[in-house]
């Protein structure tokens, strides 16, 4: 398809250009007419989608799986014993530990052999009876909506695992596009007034450029919860009245249109006209996203916005819901700044996780309630993820170290089964034992629900490996 065709095609569909970075597609024209030609994605799903948006909640630093969604009473039973003294000594079989890939030997990321008791109670919830720790009562309230995957593994035992969770590759392999960028690359826009891939919250530790070889146009657009300045360049630095601006925008449009006559068939002209319209609408619609004045007091309370400890995260999640309502594809929210991430509880795990779970639990519970009651949960995939779990053994007297061999994530909505647990770790939460999944299986599952086949999103000169694609976790698809 030549770029012209493609462009009209998209314009005809009302898909616009925001998510498509038209220019970068044009740049790759040369390939389009070669035999067996590569073609850029046309913005259409490859098959009928089950979900149209993703809210990606990422807990920086590493949440303890045992103290959240995969409770292990054996830790309490054998507390203080070394693993070798327990019936689970075989977890330390060097062959099973070999999947770890070090970046550099570090004081962290080591095996900790003295079992550390569970720091929190847990109970079964809902009809599904999913066990969830008492630190997450609001999420637990939605147990029957969750698909918990308790058998994750990764390979980077340091916080490069954050990048790895998003790109699918260990940092020793180099840099690769993140999941959100692939979604942005593959799918057209649902709302021309808003960027389609948005990042909220702190991510100081990991690579900030999501698009990598897909191009900067596929980087997440950072959104700030500040109506006065929510988006870069969304506020004029030179004071212009609304009238002056409108006159100017009208002139810009007409001048560009006149150039379109001079250069018929230059797709960049039309793309630019569209970009200015979108920019103008973005300038007005983005502040609206973070203007919560029309949300009811009840809704705000639902997200915990009236509680100091969850106000920040609650506000971000309410913004996420508003973005989803308006058709934004991928909202990536990172929780917990400082160092390598707030959840990185090498010491004082109890105080650390207790505080942080209080900050996120009610907002997430509120989000699930709110999405559900608005009928949005069916088409919105909410993901709760973290780069790795934490060691069954203690680090120091009261912490847990990084743990890559088994950990948990959960997803909800978006056409997944509800109230299911998939996969498991062994009895001390050491190794993912049943139905093991590498991080790209989460990617594949999400892409599948969005109607995308990652193998059809190839781009010239970039060979992706089997492991990059992952496999959808069919067992949790509804």
């Amino acid at each position, binding site marked *: 398809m030549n770029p012209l065709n493609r462009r*009209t095609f998209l314009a005809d569909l009302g898909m616009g250009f*925001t998510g498509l970075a038209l220019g970068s597609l044009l740049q790759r*024209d040369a390939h389009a007419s070669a035999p067996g030609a590569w073609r850029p994605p046309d913005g259409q799903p490859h098959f009928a989608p089950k979900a149209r948006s993703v809210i990606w909640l990422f807990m920086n630093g590493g949440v303890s799986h045992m103290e959240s969604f995969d409770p292990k009473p054996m830790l309490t039973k054998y507390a203080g014993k070394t693993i070798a003294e327990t019936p689970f000594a075989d977890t330390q079989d060097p062959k099973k530990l070999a999947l770890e890939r070090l970046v550099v030997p570090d004081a962290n990321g080591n095996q900790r052999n003295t079992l550390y008791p569970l720091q929190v109670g847990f109970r079964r919830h809902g009809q599904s009876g999913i066990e969830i720790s008492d630190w997450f009562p609001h999420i637990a309230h939605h147990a029957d909506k969750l698909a918990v995957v308790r058998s994750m593994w990764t390979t980077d035992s340091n916080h490069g695992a954050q990048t790895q969770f998003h790109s699918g590759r260990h940092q020793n392999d180099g840099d690769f596009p993140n999941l959100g960028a692939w979604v942005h690359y593959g799918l057209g826009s649902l709302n021309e007034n808003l960027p389609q891939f948005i990042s909220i919250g702190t991510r100081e530790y990991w690579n900030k450029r999501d698009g990598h070889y897909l191009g900067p146009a596929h980087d997440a657009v950072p959104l700030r919860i500040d109506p006065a300045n929510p988006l870069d360049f969304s506020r004029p*630095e030179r004071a212009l009245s609304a009238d002056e601006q409108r006159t100017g925008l009208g002139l810009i449009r007409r001048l560009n249109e006149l150039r379109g006559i001079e250069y018929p068939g230059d797709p960049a002209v039309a793309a630019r*006209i569209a970009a200015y319209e979108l920019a103008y609408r973005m300038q007005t619609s983005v502040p609206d996203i973070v203007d919560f004045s029309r949300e009811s007091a009840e809704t705000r309370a639902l997200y915990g916005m009236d509680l100091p400890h969850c106000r920040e995260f609650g506000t971000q999640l309410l913004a996420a819901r508003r973005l989803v309502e308006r058709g934004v594809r991928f909202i990536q929210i990172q929780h917990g700044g400082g160092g390598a991430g707030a959840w990185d509880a090498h010491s004082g795990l109890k105080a650390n996780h207790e505080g942080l779970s209080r900050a996120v639990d009610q907002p997430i519970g509120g989000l699930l309630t709110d999405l559900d009651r608005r009928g949005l949960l069916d088409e919105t995939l909410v993901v709760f993820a973290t780069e790795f779990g934490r060691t069954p053994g203690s680090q120091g007297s009261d912490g847990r170290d990084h743990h890559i061999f088994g950990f948990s994530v959960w997803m909800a909505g978006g056409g997944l089964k509800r109230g299911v647990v998939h996969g498991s770790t062994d009895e001390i939460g050491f190794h993912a034992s049943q139905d093991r999944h590498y991080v790209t299986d989460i990617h594949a599952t999400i892409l599948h629900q969005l109607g995308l086949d990652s*193998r059809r999103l190839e781009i010239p000169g970039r060979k992706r490996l089997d492991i990059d694609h992952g496999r959808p976790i069919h067992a949790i698809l509804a």
Partner: protein
Amino acid sequence: MFHSATNPSTLPPSRHILSTASRNDMARAFLPCSRPATRWLALAILLIAALSRAHASVDYSTQIRPLLQERCFSCHGALQQKSNLRLDTVELMRRGGKSGPALVPGKPDASPILERVATVDPEDRMPPEHEGQPYSPAQVAQLREWIAAGAPAPSDERPEPDPRDHWAFRPRTRPEVPRPSPPDPTRLCNPIDAFLEHARESRQLTPQPEAPRALLIRRLYLDLIGLPPTETERTALLADPTPDWYERLVDRLLEDPRHGERWARHWMDIWRYSDPWGLGEQHRNSQKHLWHWRDWIVESLNRDLPYDEMLRLMLAADELHPNDPDRLRATGFLARNYFLFNRNQWMDETIEHVGKGLLGITLNCAKCHDHKYDPFPQTDYYRLRAVFEPYHARLDVLPGEPDLDRDGLPRVYDRTLDTPTWRFVRGQENAPDKSAPMSPGVPSLFTFAPFEVHPVPLPPEAWQPERRPWVFEAHLRAASNRMEAARVRRNDTRARLGAITNAEPQVELRIAESQLAVAKLDLVAVTRRAAAQREQWHEGAKTQSSRRDAVIAERQLAVGRQQLTLDETELRLLRAAADKKDSLSKDLAAARAKLADLTQTAAAEPGPDATFTPLSGAAWTATRFLDSTKDDPASEFPRTSTGRRTALARWITDPRNPLTARVAVNHLWNRHLGAPLAPVVFDLGRKSGTPPRAALIDWLASELVDHGWSLRHLHRLIVTSAAYRMDSTTRDAADTAARDPDNQFWWRRTPLRLEGQVVRDAILALAGDLESQRGGPPVAPSAQEGSHRRSLYFYHSNNDRNLFLTTFDEALVKECYRREQSIVPQQSLALLNSRLVGDAAPRIATRLIAQTPAATDDAFIRQAFRELLGTDPSEAELTECRQSIEQWRQGITPAPNNSSNDRARSNLIWALLNHGDFVTLR
């Protein structure tokens, strides 16, 4: 399920067509009217195909062979013949391999090929685990159906050609220039056009005429120096009656020092320039002061240093010119790959980007297994790694600055001469194959020259950099500056406090005196250490007296410092609250005791083993491969270098190397014309096919090599071609546009979205604000907003990027072989709202008004168009602008006067900076 009607996937097909009729009239206005018909036709074809599939049997050429090619050929084709089996023709499948025929036509169940792709047993299944995607049940069914139908295939089926015969791997020869005879001879400005016209001729594609002069002027300025012409230059050029005005302009711009700044940025993309970055304060990647390499690139381009020489210096200046700091800057190319924590990651990046950037091959794909498309066995990867295995990075002291945190020359050197390189089984760093170390080498496919490594003995200054004459001088000057500063401080303190006899001011004064004393002792120590080191170079271990002096001087310095500590403790004690006094008194006593010890040591005669701290002329950039919390042990700089990188540099720049020049001209073409001749600039291998204009690449490459690898020669050739000078419009060329819509045959210029650097620099230049200062340390992120320096000089790393530039597809420091040219709303917001544009618009307006104070609106609009967009406005454009100015003027309160006039004109400038053509190279 979805409540949104905007989701295209939920629209039934009829809605697509409905929307075709109803939407985007404006956009459609620009399109040749045949488009919708084409789409109908395509749809019809798809339908026919879908309907007929149910009846016809599977087609080998379109359904089976591509699948085999994707999943099987890399091991069972021309590249490799595992088990002696090839699957690239039906005949070869029937012939089979070690275990007999792979295919029995008509008998699926007797055809092992089917069995092997269909089995669920991962031990048996093809392609093997991790080597490729298994066949889906549908694909297996297709294969079965095709075999059952007798495995029909075209009779003239040919096996895959020999991979070694791929165009880019063959020796380069100078192709004969074709002799087309176009009706219009101006289509042929130079041989480039002959190649292109030759291809167009047979297809009856008429190239566009030359663009108007005003556009050509803007094109050349922005492309060659990255800035628009001044009004004086523009007017003069437009009026120049000489026939060779264009060529003379090209020469002038190529010799303009701003050309180096403009094109350095292109090469910095390709060579992965990055200022250092890390986490918080910890430096983890690239090198401090890497800007020296950037300045070397700018200067080298401005001197037209031959491309081959540039590459040799970047790879091995430390072996070729160990005593030449100017040239050593070039090795920033390798020093940039430094990574604090992990050697494998560092080496992998080096191999990948020497491969992609300089040679146009994806050797990185051979890290884990033999290359799947090109004839590079996995060992090639590790042989190249062995070339780089010994190298590390260090900072050398530069004249005038001994403190390497403040300045220093980042460069490479061979540090670990004997570290073996192991092949990693399946690329896994924890699975080295220790049966035999890999010897340094280059891809075995290329045999034009032997790869010979000769160790390089280094001059003493290379491994004892303190011998360089400026090193001691720098240390001495710094020490004497410190002393002067201490003296000034002491005098100030004395003037301020000398008359006061209270205890506290007296101690303060004593501290200032001690500081001066320390500075004096320091200067003495530096002087004696320098003397001792000098004697050591000449007389080896015999130099007892100078060593003794240096040791004593350092001991006395220690005494001085301790005296200062004592004074400072005393002051703290004086000022301390009552409850802190006890513990400070103890500190004071301890300091006094230590002072006594040190004084005693200083008085004693140094023993024969006593040593002093030598003055340093360079420092290793320490790594932490062994433990993330402490530096790996330092070692002396070796007296020889392995010579491996020199051997590689010679091999890469050997005129017989088939890749190097081809890659370079492809980059140049791409950056001048917006699209490369070979489609993937970092991969000229088989996966990218044979480019249709391979002969032109070869001719350009021959020109490069035969003209002493002069980049300037290539720039001149390209920009003086008719291909470069053509108009970019498709107006009046609907026919040609219909036959070659993608401009495969270069019948017109492709407009380029300008890089963020050019956009920003042009805005500053038009406002008269651009600073001309060249080179030096980068502008810190915090200072960028107010800076008027060229964007090239902005601090740019993985973590710190300028927001405006990033919005316009700033280079990714990890890899940027082509700059993206996206068009996204964030760019519009940046041009509408940024401080950069907000500040510049009124300044540009003021400048234009000052130029012609009495100008009418029309005259102002014309002038603004010329300066900002390079062209005159059309009548329609003039009218639009006039009306808007009027509207602005009316809307601005108070009533029309001079200031509202200025404001309205500033608004016009603001609008023109947002004009599509401002950010476009037409």
